[in-house]
C-alpha cells in the first residue's frame, strides 16, 4: 500500500514536471511573435516619430506659434510628444495582441490523463521545431528591445526637455537656458534603461539556451530508452 502511494506520488511529480515543461515551451512560442512582428512594430514606432518631427518642423517653418509668447509656445509645443508616445504604445499593444493569440495549454486535456499521457507528450514534442523558434526569435527579441529603447529615448528627450525648461523658467524666467542638457540626460537615461532591459533579455536567452541543451539530452535519452 505504502509502495503504491510512493509510485503514484512519483507519477504525480512527473505529470507536474511535464506540465512545467509544456508551460515553458508555450512561453517560448511567444518569443517568436516578437521576431515575426518586429518589422511592423518598428514601422509603427518610426512612423510616429517621423510624424512628430514633421509636425514640429511644420510648426517652426510656418511659424504657426509665432503669435504666442515664448512661454505659451513652449507649452503648446510640448503635446507633440504624445505622437511618438501613442506610436510606441500602439506598437506594444499590437505585439501584445499577437502574443495573446498564441495557442497555449493545448496539452492540458491530454496531460490530465496522468503519467502515460506525460510520456506521450514527452515523446511527441517536436524538440527541433520548438527550439528553432528560439534560435530565430532571439535576434528579434534583442532588436525589439533596442527599437523600443530608441523610441523611449526620443520621448525622454521631450519630457526631460520640458521638465528642465520648466525648472529654468520658474527659477531664471527663461527657457532653453540649459542648452543640450535634455539630450545628454535622455541619452544617459536610455543607456541605463537599455543596460537593464538588454541584460534581462540576454539572461532570458541564456536560460533558454541552457534549457535547450538539457532538453536535447532528455530527448536523446528518451529515444534510446528500451524496456
Amino acid at each position, binding site marked *: 500500500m505504502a509502495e503504491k502511494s510512493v509510485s503514484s506520488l*512519483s507519477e504525480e511529480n512527473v505529470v507536474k514536471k511535464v506540465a512545467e515543461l509544456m508551460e*515553458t515551451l508555450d*512561453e517560448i512560442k511567444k518569443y517568436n511573435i516578437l521576431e515575426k512582428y518586429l518589422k511592423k512594430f518598428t514601422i509603427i514606432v518610426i512612423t510616429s516619430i517621423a510624424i512628430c518631427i514633421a509636425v514640429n518642423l511644420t510648426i517652426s517653418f510656418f511659424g504657426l506659434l509665432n503669435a504666442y509668447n515664448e512661454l505659451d509656445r513652449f507649452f503648446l509645443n510640448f503635446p507633440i510628444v504624445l505622437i511618438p508616445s501613442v506610436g510606441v504604445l500602439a506598437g506594444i499593444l499590437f505585439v501584445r495582441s499577437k502574443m495573446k493569440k498564441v495557442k497555449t495549454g493545448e496539452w492540458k486535456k491530454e496531460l490530465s490523463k496522468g503519467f*502515460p499521457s*506525460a*510520456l506521450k507528450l*514527452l515523446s511527441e514534442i517536436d524538440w527541433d521545431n520548438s527550439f528553432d523558434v528560439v534560435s530565430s526569435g532571439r535576434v528579434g527579441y534583442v532588436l525589439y528591445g533596442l527599437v523600443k529603447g530608441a523610441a523611449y529615448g526620443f520621448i525622454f528627450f521631450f519630457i526631460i526637455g520640458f521638465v528642465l525648461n520648466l525648472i529654468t523658467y520658474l527659477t531664471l524666467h527663461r527657457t532653453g537656458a540649459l542648452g543640450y542638457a535634455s539630450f545628454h540626460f535622455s541619452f544617459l537615461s536610455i543607456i541605463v534603461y537599455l543596460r537593464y532591459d538588454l541584460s534581462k533579455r540576454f539572461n532570458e536567452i541564456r536560460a*533558454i539556451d541552457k534549457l535547450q541543451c538539457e532538453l536535447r539530452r*532528455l530527448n536523446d535519452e528518451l529515444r534510446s530508452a528500451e*524496456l
Partner: protein
Amino acid sequence: MNSEALSSKPDLYVVARIIKALKKKNKINKTALATCTELSYDKLVKYLDWMSKKGFIEIDENGAVILTKAGSETYDELVQWIMKHVGQLKFPRLRAST
C-alpha cells in the same frame, strides 16, 4: 494478422497505458482492455504478445490479461526513470517582455 509481432520498437506510451489500466483492474479481458486503453484490438494484441514475451503480463486460460510483478515493477521503474531525467530539468521563469 493478430499474431503478427510488433514490427518496430514498442511505444512506451502504449505500454504504460496498458500497464496502468492493468494496475487498476487486476484481471481484465482483451476487449475491455482495448476499450479502456483506447487501442484497436489488433494493436493491443500485438502489444500483449510483446509484453507477454517480456514477462510483463500473463494471459490465463479464459483469455484474461493479468499484470505480473515484473510488469508492475517495470512500470514503476519507468516512472522513476522519467522522473530522474525530467526531475533534473530546471525551468527558467520566462516572460517575453514587450
